[in-house]
């Protein structure tokens, strides 16, 4: 957080939020790595674990409200993502996809939860980690299923394609599987969270700035900026859910592709 009052006292005009607004200082000076996003990630682990353990504890045939809530999320990942995309043998991947979805979703939503208000996924390190996990999982699954040689061969030389096309297709396919997929997966999530947070910062800080301005007209327009910030918060909520869904869906698709006999 920036100290608004201090900044405006200097009277050097509106400073738009920048990438530096994402570099939060350590919570305590003695532990350099213990920053807000790190704390939020750990908090998300605790929140998700506690919520789902409480929800699943009874495993009753007739669910309580809590169990129904947890079960609905679980059933969504299990049925709509894992089963519908991967099909046969999907149960093996449900724990991974479920963890992925809840972890990303919770951390994303932290971006609009009052007092937390920071999406950990806007720190690119976390999406990178998740993309690497997915990368390892779907390649591992493919190699286990088809053997290393056959798996790599089918990636590099897609069957059923005329030979000269390989000149063009092979580099594209190899790049897709080993570079583009993990990169787009992580950067899509990162960029959405980053941009979304930046957008909120612009309108909230802008409103704050206008409110503190000496001109009356600026003060009058300040509420509009705040209102827009609130509207964007709802929009952000949608984006946050959507990104968690997309990340999980793409992971499921990659796994399904690796499991399929022909690409």
């Amino acid at each position, binding site marked *: 957080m920036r100290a608004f009052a201090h900044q405006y006292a200097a009277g050097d005009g509106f400073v738009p939020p920048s990438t530096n607004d994402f*570099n939060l200082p*350590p919570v305590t000076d003695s532990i350099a790595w213990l920053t807000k996003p790190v704390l939020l990630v*750990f908090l998300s682990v605790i929140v998700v*674990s506690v919520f789902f353990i409480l929800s699943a504890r009874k495993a009753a045939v007739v669910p309580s409200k809590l169990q129904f809530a*947890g079960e609905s999320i679980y059933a969504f990942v299990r049925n709509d993502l894992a089963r519908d995309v991967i099909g046969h043998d999907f149960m093996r991947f449900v724990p991974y996809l479920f*963890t992925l979805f809840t972890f990303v979703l919770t951390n994303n939503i932290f971006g609009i939860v009052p007092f937390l208000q920071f999406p950990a996924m806007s720190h690119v390190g*976390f999406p990178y980690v*998740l993309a690497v996990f997915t990368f390892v999982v779907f390649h591992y699954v493919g190699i286990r299923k088809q053997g290393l040689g056959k798996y790599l061969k089918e990636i590099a030389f897609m069957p059923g394609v005329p030979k000269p096309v390989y000149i063009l297709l092979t580099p594209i396919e190899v790049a897709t599987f080993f570079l583009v997929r993990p990169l787009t997966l992580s950067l899509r999530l990162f960029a959405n969270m980053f941009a979304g947070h930046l957008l909120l910062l612009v309108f909230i800080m802008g409103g704050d700035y206008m409110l503190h301005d000496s001109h009356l007209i600026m003060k009058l327009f300040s509420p509009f900026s705040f209102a827009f910030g609130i509207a964007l918060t709802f929009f952000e909520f949608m984006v946050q859910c959507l990104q968690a869904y997309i990340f999980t869906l793409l992971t499921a698709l990659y796994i399904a592709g690796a499991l399929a006999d022909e690409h």
Partner: protein
Amino acid sequence: MRSLNLLSEGEAANPLVPHTAELIVGTIAFTLLFLVLRKAVVPMFEKAFAARTEAIEGGIKKAEQAQLEAQRALVQYNEQLSSAQGEASKLREEARVQGAAILEELRTKAQDEAARITAAAHASIEAERQQAITSLRNEVGALAVELASKIVGEALDDQARQSRIVDRFIEDLEKSK
């Protein structure tokens, strides 16, 4: 990779370069969550789903069984009903036959009786007739003797006398009756 505290104020940080600490924290946190969810959450939800499926299937099975039983009862009932109906019609038929037999018997009896009565009447009539004939014969004989003696006793002068005698005789006869 960079570490946080190297960043000086105002220096633009490249947001695409990850913090080492965050990579480690992300890995640990995600693995931790994965282990917890896989151990304590997924199996429980699966158990609940399986139990629910079983409960639903059990319910359906039970309902099917009940329906089967009901159908069997219905068939049995229908069978009983039709057998009862058959029995009733058989009884009715028997009663009809029996009734007809009784009627026939009665009629025969009545006819016999009638015949007997008729025969008896005939016999008595015959006897009476015989009796009448006998008595008539006796009477006519006696009368004839009487008439003959009368005729013989009187002088038979002429035709007119004769005729008068006969007429008188017949008149007497009629009067005496």
